[in-house]
């Protein structure tokens, strides 16, 4: 259970460039929620993730994970509970190390000691886990990750993150940098893992169809605020047109975003 209370984030406070990226966010994320988040550029989606993960500190407000106040905790401390996947497929793995070495690192959380990492038992377990990706990576345990394609790396990152058992999974447009075929593969894997491991997830996407199709709850953000929070049957009945409409009613202006326009056209 994750709770955000009165979270504000202001960049360059007290200067002429002052930018209130998050304004008074109040949000409760329940166990097993799969929340999709949409909004125009600059709405504050990534900033929200940064504040939750600890990459940035909130200017005001508190964050609770399972009733523990983690507002002041640094990023690496919060990583014990939070798994985050970024848009760049290269950012989740170490290129100069092999698949099995990467998996061994992701296997545990926290500072560790001088135990030899890899052994026969662990390798066997990794092989089994890799089979789920259906990319024949289980036959390439000793290959350097740097030799894999972007899609393969992002899949591996996804697998590693999921296996580490996060309390909250943050997906920040994690398919945006991939070609359509790989993007689809990753998305269906994502959905599969979330269902299978019952993960609480928040996913930022620019694809309105995906936002509607996946998850049990949808948030729309604009100018640092959550302007829409739909779940249950209301979400199931959503269409892209209805969403655009709702936005206009709330904001009295057109929903502006090239990406949304583009995805609308297919």
């Amino acid at each position, binding site marked *: 259970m994750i709770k955000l209370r009165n979270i504000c984030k202001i960049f360059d406070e007290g200067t002429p460039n002052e930018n209130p990226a998050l304004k008074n966010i109040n949000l409760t994320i329940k166990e097993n929620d799969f929340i999709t988040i949409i909004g125009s550029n600059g709405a504050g989606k990534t900033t929200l993730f940064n504040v939750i993960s600890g990459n940035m500190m909130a200017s005001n407000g508190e964050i609770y994970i399972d009733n523990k106040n983690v507002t002041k905790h*640094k990023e690496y401390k919060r990583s014990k509970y939070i798994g985050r996947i970024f848009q760049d497929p290269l*950012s*989740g793995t*170490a*290129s100069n*190390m092999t698949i099995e070495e990467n998996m061994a690192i992701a296997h545990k959380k926290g*500072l560790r*000691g*001088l135990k030899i990492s890899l052994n026969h038992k662990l390798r066997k377990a990794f092989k089994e886990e890799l089979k789920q990706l259906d990319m024949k990576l289980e036959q390439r345990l000793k290959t350097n990750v740097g030799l894999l394609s*972007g899609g393969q790396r992002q899949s591996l990152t996804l697998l590693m993150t999921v296996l580490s058992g996060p309390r909250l999974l943050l997906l920040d447009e994690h398919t945006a940098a991939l070609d359509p075929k790989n993007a689809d593969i990753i998305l269906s894997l994502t959905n599969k893992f979330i269902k299978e491991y019952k993960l609480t997830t928040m996913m930022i996407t620019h694809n309105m169809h995906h936002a509607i199709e996946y998850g049990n709850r949808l948030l729309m953000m604009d100018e640092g605020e959550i302007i829409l929070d739909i779940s249950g049957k209301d979400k199931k009945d959503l269409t892209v047109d209805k969403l655009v409409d709702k936005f206009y009613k709330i904001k009295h202006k057109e929903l502006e975003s090239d990406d949304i326009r583009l995805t609308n056209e297919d």
Partner: protein
Amino acid sequence: MIFKQIINILIVAAPYGLIYGIMALGVFITFRILDFPDLTVDGSFPLGAAIMALFIVNGFNLYIALFISFLGGITAGIITASIHNYIKVPGLLAGIITMIMLYSINIRILGGSNLQILKRKTILTNIIDLFNKTNIPEELILIIFFIIIVIIIKLLLDLFFHTDLGLTLRAMGDNTQMVLNQGINPDILKLIGVGMSNGIVALSGAFFAQYQKFADTNLGQGIIITGLASVIIGEFIIRSNKIFLITLSVVLGATIIQTVEITGRMYGAYVFLKPTDLKLIKGFLLIVILGISIILKQRKKTNKKIRTGLTL
């Protein structure tokens, strides 16, 4: 005749290659594994030499002396990493700051600018005495001894980089975000890595002092270049992602450099080269090697693009 000359060159170059090889392993840890450009080594190498020399001159236990030299190096590395972590200074600058401070500290330890240990008992003289009944020439005894030392240090390092901690250190140099994602504070890893690296460099300095029979404050001048060159040449000769082979290549690289140096000194005059020209030649050699490496890497990249048809 030529064969004999080559053997002679190798016999002279080997101890230097091995001693500097230890130093190069230390430099390898910071520069390659941690991706942290660390100049502390110009100061931690003479630090190890100074501590060892001081203990030798005062007749203390030699193995404890070696250990304290190692600890001295670790302390220097921790200071550098701390300056970087907590005062938010770039790694390069932090290393320079520590290196400068070590200059004063080394002079204090030496009680002046140099310390001679010619007639004293050192670990090396003890080893030679041990085998003095046999007919093996002194030079060979020392070479075998250094080979054993290097093998021990190398194997310990190889093992370390296969442990959980070692893997995370390697990951940090490659992708700091990944380490953050695993709930590890990268600051702590830097303290461990830079500390360990300088400990090994100081150890190398301690052996150097015993081999040279003196220690002074200028022993480390420019030694970072020797270390880096060893790593680069090593990578050029053996290309692998296996740690076991990489550490081996570093020591080989160091040996090659010393062989080039002694060859240049002994036979340079025949090609109108003075020993002072050696630095130019070393630089030239490095440029050529780096150039070839870049070309090979580009070729690999374009080949891969053609194969996978993917633009990242």
